[in-house]
């Protein structure tokens, strides 16, 4: 199912406008700070209200400012991996992940699903530890497990690897690609790094000053990369 976005967000003199459709697979949104990348994720998740426009997943309308329709954040089933990860500091890894499993599921099964996901991302040993004790890569993996625990319909990744060094990035990029392929849903990853985009994405959109300035495959974008692009993976 594809995610159709046709929105404008106007805030304090800044205008973000985007019309595009995200198919299943990974689309990287590339651009400098302040280009509107996180605004896009916020609009899709329901955390940012568009000034006008429409967001729909298949036939299901999430936002339509004309029809005054709005599906609340918690009913969209959007897995959002925040740049700051936003792991709940008062909960263990298993409780963090179980938090995302629907409450209709019995507690024991929620915990079992959380444990299975932690094992899937390779951090079972953290199940009973709180986030303050994790390394950067471990925290990223727990956050990934948590984001995927709800059977997401769309996956949003905000600068997913920016805090990691090269050795940690490579296996995580492979893991994200595998998990998104398993989920079979549209995934949108925002990044500064063309290198990351090249390694991760099926499609790359370049945004600047709130607008799409290029749209294509990673190879297309690499061919037109400017001198200021960060090419490190």
């Amino acid at each position, binding site marked *: 199912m594809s995610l159709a976005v046709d929105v404008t967000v106007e805030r304090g003199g800044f205008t973000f406008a985007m019309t595009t459709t995200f198919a299943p697979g990974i689309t990287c949104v590339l651009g400098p700070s302040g280009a509107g990348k996180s605004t896009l994720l916020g609009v899709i*998740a*329901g*955390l940012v209200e568009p000034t006008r426009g429409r967001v729909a997943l298949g036939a299901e309308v999430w936002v339509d400012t004309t029809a005054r329709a709005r599906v*609340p*954040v*918690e009913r*969209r*089933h*959007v*897995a*959002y991996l*925040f740049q*700051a990860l*936003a792991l*709940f*500091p*008062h909960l263990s890894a298993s409780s963090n992940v179980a*938090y*995302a499993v*629907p*409450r209709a599921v019995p507690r024991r099964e929620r915990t079992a699903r959380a444990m299975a996901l932690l094992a899937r991302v390779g951090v079972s040993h953290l199940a009973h530890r709180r986030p303050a004790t994790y390394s950067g890569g471990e925290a990223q993996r727990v956050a990934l497990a*948590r984001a995927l*625990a*709800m059977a997401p319909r769309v996956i949003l990744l905000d600068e997913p690897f920016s805090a990691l060094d090269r050795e940690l990035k490579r296996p995580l990029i492979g893991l994200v690609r595998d998990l998104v392929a398993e989920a079979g849903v549209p995934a949108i990853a925002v990044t500064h790094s063309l290198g990351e985009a090249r390694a991760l994405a099926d499609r790359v959109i370049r945004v600047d000053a709130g607008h799409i300035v290029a749209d294509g495959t990673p190879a297309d974008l690499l061919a037109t990369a400017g001198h200021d692009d960060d090419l490190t993976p």
Partner: protein
Amino acid sequence: MDVEPLLLSLEAALIATALAGLVGIAAGAALASRRMPARHLLDAIFAAPMVMPPTVLGYYVLVTVGRKSALGGAYRDLVGSDLTFTFHGVVLAAAIGAFPMVAKAARTAFAGVDPTLLAAARTLGAGRVRAFLTVALPLAAPGLIGGLMLGFARGLGDFGVTLMIAGDIPGETQSAPLAIYDHVQAGREHAAATSSLVLTGGAIAILYVVNRLTDRAGGDR
């Protein structure tokens, strides 16, 4: 030592802290939200009892809920007891003292919760209420407990507002601070000293626990 005023003060302060806790935590949570209209003005109004003369505060309360007021009459019809010059008045005076302490602490505690955590909870399927109860409340808990303890201590030690709206009726509205005043007036030095020491010890113990909680909340172990 005259234990009755101490027990009356403890009972009144406990009930008052529960009441001020309910209202103060809700007020603090609302004030911590940037969406709350006129929140700075409301914060100033809520905090005013901390700096107003007790006589002025007591006067307002008497006018608002006194025996001849509409609210006071409604309270008497509902509960079967006057609010002023009864034990209920002692509780109200303690609650008025406790409320700003709880509300201020709650505002600070909730403002310290990273909004990204609440946004994350929402994206993970939690409605506003669940996100508040499972994320904001536990993370703010040390600050809230500290505020409740300060509110309890403040309620326990109230003198001026209690005197204004509940009077000084032994066995009925005479709290420990009022009893100490009476002991001093009557020259009962030993009784005054003993009750004062008990209240001082209690206050220091409460402040010690609050400091420990504050340190823990700030990560200073």
